[in-house]
């Protein structure tokens, strides 16, 4: 009798686990179906998953643009120390929407890409 109970309990657990696995697999199937594969644009400025964790100071160093220009592009009049705040914190502080910040950040990155490609073209011409 005791063995029978054990087998029954284990069987119930198996049914439950199989049910959970099927449910999770269906969820993953739809998630994979709906995901957008990364392209150059989404990798650079996509959902702001990385950029919201970067400070103006870092962006300034990376793209070699002054902090003032970045704040101007972000349409923010900064307080002292704002250059050390993450983009997500600036968003909150100055009541900006993520979309606004994303568009303005895009302008900075695109202008940098244009400058770099101009330099490359000029370099090739000089050669």
């Amino acid at each position: 009798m005791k063995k029978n109970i054990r087998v029954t309990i284990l069987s119930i657990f198996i049914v439950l686990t199989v049910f959970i696995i099927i449910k999770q697999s269906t969820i993953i199937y739809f998630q994979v179906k709906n995901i957008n594969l990364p392209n150059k644009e989404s990798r650079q400025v996509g959902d702001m998953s990385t950029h919201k964790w970067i400070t103006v100071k870092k962006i300034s160093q990376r793209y070699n643009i002054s902090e003032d220009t970045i704040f101007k592009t972000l349409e923010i009049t900064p307080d002292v120390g704002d250059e050390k705040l993450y983009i997500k914190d600036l968003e909150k502080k100055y009541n900006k929407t993520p979309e606004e910040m994303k568009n303005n950040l895009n302008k900075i990155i695109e202008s940098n890409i244009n400058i770099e490609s101009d330099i490359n073209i000029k370099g090739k011409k000089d050669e």
Partner: protein
Amino acid sequence: MSEFSNLLIEYFRNYNIWFLSVIIILQCIGIPTGASMLVLASGAFAYAGEFNVTVLLLEVWFFAWLGDNIAYIIWNYVGYKILGRHYKLKGYVEPKILTAEVYLNKYGRRTVFLTRFVMGAMGPFVNAAAGISKYKLLTFSLFAGLGELFWTSLYLGLGYWFGDSWESIVPIVTDFGQILTYIAILIIILYFLIKSIKNKKSKS
């Protein structure tokens, strides 16, 4: 993203690889810390130019490997000390350790290797079993290192590939990990069920 995930990333941004290394080592020991998500994020930050991706890969790999070895050593020393103090527990656990020893001697290499990345959730248990059953440290270390290389490349690579959209892949990676854990649980339950049925038949 949960508050906890945001907190993890905030600390990671402040303390970089040092925070990541602590999180990875704790995860290897068996404390769920969200290391996979953080490694994925670090790959994305590497794409954004915050880290050198090759150096980051080597660092994450090293700390994951170190964590596995620390877990092994802890279970090797502490496991036996605990058992030595509690005789009742020793009597109960010792036959199971012997079974683990036989199993690891037979399938140890592939078990250690696969539980680093395919069945990641089982990793800490295998570390514990290997440590307590005194499985060969060199073999464990070698196959753990090899498995961790796959784990690191997979998560770091995904983060690097998705770049600024890395958060969109997190639910899929998390759910996929959960499915693998449920499959492992199913295999264990099936094993016990078959064992029970066999015992029942042999007795009748």
